[in-house]
């Protein structure tokens, strides 16, 4: 397979492992561009990419913008607050307006799950999902897979523990789909309120636990998640109690595989879901994830933009 057989990149759930490999296979080539003195190639010269972020974002937005620029595309970034949505325009009308300016790709983040899927039915412009509500964040899972593959030769048979606020996490959902498609074993861990039981049905080889010790035991990959207080109505979140039960500390790492890597999609909250010692520990690959974010987004933009309209 050499061609992406879809207009948009909305989520990984409906994609085959083979399709996902189209992105993972080009990691080394795109990464090399970021290591050059002149970090730019003309692959997407003359293409226009609109970054439309209806939710706050630092890393994803910067990462998409840098990725697009390194491929030679022109980019504009629009955030929800300053847009005409605040003047009462509907989402479809905003997107149709932008689409009329003939961009080649719209990258969008929205707090409503399914927003990009909904819009893709109305727009001919390809849409890349940069995170929709609690649903999917496909480029995050791709960059996570790239990061794991820098430490392991294959995803097959890996034991990955995903710990934290899984219920609200689009990062977890995309990672679950991707890792399961490649044959990894998954342990999802969190307090009952953040770990809905139906998650076990998302893919084969998923187990759920409320014990962080059990989750990290024998794990090759430990993915920590932030508690997404912005998606829940919780006053006075018991931060210290949460850290005591679900915060990753050095003592937990002794239970994991000796080469286990610690991941976090960011932003990290030290002392809430992860201790400072673990965040800065040698096998923490949090900043490698950020670096690979640019690589993953270059791969996605090139594939999605590179197909002729």
């Amino acid at each position, binding site marked *: 397979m*050499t*061609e992406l057989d879809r207009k948009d990149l909305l989520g990984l759930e409906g994609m085959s492992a083979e399709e996902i490999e189209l992105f993972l*296979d*080009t990691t*080394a*080539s*795109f990464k*090399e*561009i970021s290591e*050059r*003195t*002149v970090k*730019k*190639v*003309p*692959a997407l010269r003359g293409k226009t990419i609109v970054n439309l972020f209806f939710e706050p974002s630092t890393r994803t937005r910067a990462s998409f913008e840098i990725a697009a620029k390194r*491929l030679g595309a022109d980019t504009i970034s629009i955030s929800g607050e300053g847009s005409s949505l605040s003047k009462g325009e509907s989402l479809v009308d905003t997107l149709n307006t932008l689409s009329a300016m003939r961009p080649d790709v719209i990258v969008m983040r929205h707090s409503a799950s399914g927003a990009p899927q909904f819009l893709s039915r109305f727009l001919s412009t390809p849409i890349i999902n940069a995170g929709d509500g609690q649903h999917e964040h496909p480029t995050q899972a791709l960059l996570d897979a790239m990061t794991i593959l820098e430490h392991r030769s294959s995803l097959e048979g890996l034991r990955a523990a995903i710990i934290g606020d899984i219920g609200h996490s689009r990062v977890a959902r995309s990672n679950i789909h991707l890792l399961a498609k490649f044959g990894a074993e998954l342990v999802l861990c969190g307090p009952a309120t953040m770990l809905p039981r139906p998650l076990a049905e998302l893919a084969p080889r998923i187990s759920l636990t409320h014990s962080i010790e059990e989750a990290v035991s024998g794990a090759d990959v430990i993915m920590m998640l932030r508690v997404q207080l912005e998606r829940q109505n919780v006053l006075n979140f018991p931060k210290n109690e949460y850290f005591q039960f679900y915060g990753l500390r050095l003592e937990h790492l002794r239970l994991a595989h000796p080469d286990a890597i610690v991941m976090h999609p960011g932003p990290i909250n030290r002392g809430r879901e992860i201790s400072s010692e673990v965040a800065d520990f040698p096998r923490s690959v949090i900043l490698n994830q950020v670096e690979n974010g640019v690589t993953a987004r270059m791969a996605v933009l*090139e*594939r999605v933009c*590179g*197909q*002729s309209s």
Partner: protein
Amino acid sequence: MAADQVARTVTRIAHEIVERHRTLDDVALVGIRTRGVPIARRLSAVLHDITSATVPTGVLDITLYRDDLMRHPVGPQPILRKTEIEFSIDDRRILLVDDVLYTGRTIRAALDALIDFGRPRQIQLAVLVDRGHREFPIKADYVGKNVPTSESEFVEVHVTELDEKDEVILGEKSL
């Protein structure tokens, strides 16, 4: 062109390179993916045999520099692979190596790609086969064999590293 002819041709090009350079100290080879790479490696080996100089050899992938990426609505996107140039090209004499010289578009892309890595003192071009039909003002400095062709024909270079054997095939394109 059979295997022994391919080997002799590579050796001859290497001798020409030695003849034209007083020293190989500032020379580096860069093979264009895919089949320019094994040819560049072989040239480097022969250059080592002749002069005992070690000529650094790099690999250039020009996929992201091509001018025809967006022009084939149904054709597959080419597979992108990695560029590996582990030495500084600044002030070096670079010998760009490819298997077949045809329209010159690949070389145009390769020049753009190479210049993004620095400012070489000189860039020369070595090809195993020149089949004519240039669309750009590009000319090879070292040519293994000039093969007059028509546009309805194809020229394929096979090398043992990637294919079964060394050979150059000229045939009629099937429609």
